[in-house]
């Protein structure tokens, strides 16, 4: 899924390197946390993987069909921007088709299905699901939030879609489903700036999952989120990884979360990095 080989990077294309001799292979279905102190180069690596920067030497290839990206929560993103949750998601859906042709029928198992398969932050009561959401039938059977009954309805919801983006008529249902899976159905008309840190992060997560990505990249998902919100977000991510096999790469400053949730940890320091298991990493931390 991700293949980084002998990567060197600096903004001036000359030493001193911000990233030096980085190699990292991520297979499909893994949950990698990238950890390291401030200035260790983890954000730079993230921007290289997202294609915002080009390697000076070496390669950084991402083989994902679609990347879902959850940016770091900053004040600049939304606090004073007059935009509603619905508008953030609606325009995102409208832009999903802009990147070339996607494989046929990307929505056959798309976000609508995601809400049915991955469960929610809390067990969904049937009445918590909007009546016109695509999984409305399924939710009556899936009281635990991991209902399997949704897939039958999904295929009719998603049927006959060609090209990259969802047709306009489907977008409201996609948005309802996306918000339902993060338990924010009631916040559809809220201003982004009026959300709490945790709610905002969940909206960005719901957004990233629109378009059925096969790789989710997150930048410090727990920044500015209270402890209970953090718990919900990590449980949700872990569930996405476990039940849907979604590949996740998360730049992480929350080391406990990294150790508890990821399958592997990429530990960075001074522009170098090595891969280790969460257990090894925990030992290194205790030993250091």
């Amino acid at each position, binding site marked *: 899924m991700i293949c980084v080989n002998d990567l060197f990077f600096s903004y001036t294309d000359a030493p001193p390197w911000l990233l030096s001799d980085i190699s990292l292979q991520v297979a499909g279905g893994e949950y990698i946390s990238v950890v390291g102190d401030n200035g260790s180069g983890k954000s730079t690596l993230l921007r290289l993987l997202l*294609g915002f920067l080009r390697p000076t030497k070496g390669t950084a290839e991402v083989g994902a069909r679609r*990347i879902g990206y959850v940016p770091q929560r900053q004040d600049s*993103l939304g606090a004073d921007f*007059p935009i509603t949750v619905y508008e953030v998601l609606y*325009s995102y859906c409208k*832009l999903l088709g802009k990147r070339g042709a996607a494989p046929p029928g990307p929505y056959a198992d798309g976000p609508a299905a995601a809400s049915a398969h991955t469960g929610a932050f809390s067990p969904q009561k049937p009445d918590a699901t909007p009546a016109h959401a695509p999984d409305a039938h399924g939710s009556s059977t899936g009281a635990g939030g991991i209902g399997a009954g949704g897939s039958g309805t999904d295929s009719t919801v998603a049927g006959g879609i060609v090209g990259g983006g969802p047709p306009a008529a489907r977008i409201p249902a996609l948005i309802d489903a996306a918000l339902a899976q993060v338990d924010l159905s009631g916040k559809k008309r809220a*201003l982004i700036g009026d959300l709490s840190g945790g709610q905002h992060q969940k909206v960005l997560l719901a957004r990233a999952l629109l378009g059925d990505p096969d790789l989710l990249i997150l930048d410090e998902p727990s920044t500015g989120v209270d402890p209970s919100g953090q718990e919900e977000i990590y449980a949700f991510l872990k569930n996405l990884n476990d039940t849907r096999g979604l590949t996740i790469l998360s730049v992480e400053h929350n080391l406990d979360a990294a150790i508890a949730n990821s399958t592997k940890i990429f530990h960075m320091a001074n522009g170098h990095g090595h891969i280790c298991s969460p257990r090894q990493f925990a030992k290194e931390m205790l030993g250091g």
Partner: protein
Amino acid sequence: MLRYTFMQNALLASLLIAILCPCIGIFLVLRKFSLIGDTLAHASLAGVALGLFTGVNPILGAFVFTSVCGALIEFLRGAFRKHTDLILSVVMSLGVGVAITLISSGKLRAGADAFLFGSILTVTRGDLALVAALSLVAVLTVGLLYHRLLYIAYDEDAAQILGVRVKLINYVFSVLVACAISVSIRLVGVLVLSSMISLPVAAAIQLGRGFKVTLLASIAFSLADILLGLAGSTYLGVAPGGFTALAGVAVLLVVIVGKHAWRKTRRRRAG
């Protein structure tokens, strides 16, 4: 009043300005680029002067020169990544430099003063046709690029990951800014042109609503501003530019005061 052709022209032009300016201005304001509007407005004077110098329609001259300056700003943004404010000084110097040189040469075929303060007497039928054409193309383009422009303003990284051609759209957008400026320049004038671009949007943002509502509200405020400006200009016999700017500030103040008053009464009712 409306039986005079010049008044009809001025009124039609005002309506076009009132719709177009906030459509462009909202993206400038939300990207914290209001000063780009001001810079380009000043640079447009050079286009006017070039038009008056060569005999081309000054509005067309303003449109072409301002588009070039807008593209120049986009281009220089790569070179001065950390000092974008510097770019504005550069482009403003270029524009105003050309304008002053040409105007002071005494070789213009008509006075450029009307373009500084704005004038309701000078909007000709030919100007109106050009203004209408530019407005139509610009508003349609905004409609076509709506979601892309919104995402570039709200979350440029996400737009880029989605495959939006951010750089290209930024260039297209600078032409749209040039449209808005050249459309407004006859009536509002160079000096306070940025008031049409940013004040109605500033007032609409105060309402604290979503993007679409903010956009519609800014068009409503912009209509109020320019109609007040036009009325004031007619009855007081002053240049419409100045009075429109004052109307813009007044509307903004009314909105802010009204918002606080409304909040207070709501709190009192709740408590």
